[in-house]
């Protein structure tokens, strides 16, 4: 029998809250982080809204418990805030941390800081200390920072597979535990908004200038966001020794690449379908067992049609309740998988289904409708969480109540 993997704690920061309880309160009140960009320096401030965390870097330093000027990028600061909460909520001791592994995901790393100095670096007369900035463009830089602060010495890894990144961090951590490499692995992802991301998505014509409308016939694109979330994964043996209660079990997972296009998913949703199917197979479940799906649901024309098609192919006439939580947080890129994993854990713990706000009219190609009202007192046993990314990456995680 396969060793089981449990989640014993989590932490999260997004535009709707700087910790788990704040995020949950916002989800319950259907409060969204969508609005004008105030902190990111961009010429698009008046035209391209997003879900920005309304805290300046020095305020984030405070929350993260590091001194301003210690060279932490915004991506690393967000990560540190969320990972500290995860460690606290799982009550990990410094000794536990020393033996733990850590896998963190990002797409942008320190691009935000680097682009602020880009012109200085190009100007040879200014003689800017080039390598000091260059380091943060390496996605792994933030993981080293986090591990350093937490005292993780055993193993660190960084994953950057676009918007499926942190789902892949979580399933990689689960594999390390299943193979007996570690008893505890801290997994998740972090991404700060940057001009590169904003301008890149804008060029691709997939940013909605209004609040995004996942799965709606009149959807026009996604809203970007920023944030971080981390999960503490533990082996069954470690759990038995400590006597801790697990939040949930990570019962299944799958990741594959559908190799269709650089930025578009296949219209048939081939990758999405296989990721969900294989996650269920690994968990030894059939589709009928699924109580809720936290969809990738970005609000782009391509994603929602492709993902919706995959849902219909897998579940036929009986598509389980599903919703996208991206209207609340925006698309937090590399952190999307772990942020939404945390929302799934909150759903299981509290018997909630968070509604897919802004949905009005079903897509004409499909007969599916997301959940649009907050549901309380729901008994959720098995939940799927989807995360797909540019480059064809499709991942699905299966969480189960203990």
């Amino acid at each position, binding site marked *: 029998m396969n060793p089981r993997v449990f989640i014993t704690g989590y932490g999260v920061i997004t535009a709707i809250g700087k910790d788990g309880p704040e995020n949950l309160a916002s989800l319950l009140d259907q409060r969204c982080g969508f609005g004008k960009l105030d902190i990111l320096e961009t010429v698009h401030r008046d035209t391209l809204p997003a879900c920005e965390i309304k805290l300046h870097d020095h305020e984030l330093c405070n929350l993260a418990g590091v001194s301003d000027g210690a060279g932490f990028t915004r991506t690393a600061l967000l990560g540190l805030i969320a990972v500290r909460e995860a460690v606290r909520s799982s009550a990990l001791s410094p000794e536990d941390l020393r033996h733990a592994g850590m896998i963190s995901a990002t797409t942008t790393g320190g691009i935000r800081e680097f682009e602020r100095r880009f012109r200085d670096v190009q100007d040879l007369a200014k003689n800017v200390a080039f390598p000091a900035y260059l380091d943060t463009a390496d996605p792994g830089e933030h993981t080293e920072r986090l591990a350093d602060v937490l005292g993780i010495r055993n193993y660190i890894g960084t994953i950057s597979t676009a918007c499926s990144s942190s789902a892949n961090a979580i399933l990689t951590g689960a594999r390390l535990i299943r193979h007996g490499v570690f008893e505890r692995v801290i997994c998740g992802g972090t991404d700060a908004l940057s001009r590169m991301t904003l301008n890149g998505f804008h*060029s*691709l*014509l*997939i940013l909605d200038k209004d609040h995004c409308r996942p799965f709606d016939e009149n959807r*026009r*694109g996604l809203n970007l966001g920023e944030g971080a979330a981390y999960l503490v994964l533990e082996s069954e043996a470690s759990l038995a020794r400590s006597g801790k209660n697990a939040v949930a079990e990570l019962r299944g997972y799958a990741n594959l690449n559908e190799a269709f*296009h*650089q*930025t*578009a998913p296949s219209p048939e949703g081939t990758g999405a379908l296989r990721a969900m199917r294989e996650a269920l197979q690994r968990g030894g479940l059939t589709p009928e067992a699924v109580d809720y799906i936290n969809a990738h649901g970005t609000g782009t*024309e391509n994603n929602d049609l492709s993902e919706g098609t995959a849902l219909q192919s897998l579940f036929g006439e009986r598509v389980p309740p599903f919703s996208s939580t991206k209207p609340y947080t925006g698309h937090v890129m590399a952190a999307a998988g772990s942020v939404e994993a945390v929302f799934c854990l909150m759903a299981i713990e509290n018997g909630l289904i968070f509604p897919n706000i802004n949905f009005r009219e079903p897509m004409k190609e499909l007969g599916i409708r997301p959940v649009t009202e907050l549901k309380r007192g729901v008994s959720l046993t098995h939940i799927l969480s989807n995360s797909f990314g540019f480059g064809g990456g499709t991942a699905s995680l299966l969480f189960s109540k203990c």
Partner: protein
Amino acid sequence: MQTIEELTDQLKAQIIECLHLEEVYEDLDVDMPLFGEETGLDSIDALEVVVLLEKNYGIKIEDAKVARKILYNVRTIAEHVEANRAK
């Protein structure tokens, strides 16, 4: 004042250059769908044309659904440029 025929020829040359089609097409059929199976060009190539139209004609295209209609073939591009050009 440039006629629509002259504009169309100019656009053909610019599109061939910007999408590196010199070795595939000497001339572009104005009614041939520019993106999709026939040419093998995709949405990333379409972005190059969006940039071309902005740089050379001051035309901004910001909506993907609208872009799809404008960029359907050389004829639709030429008609849109003629009606909306800022330079």
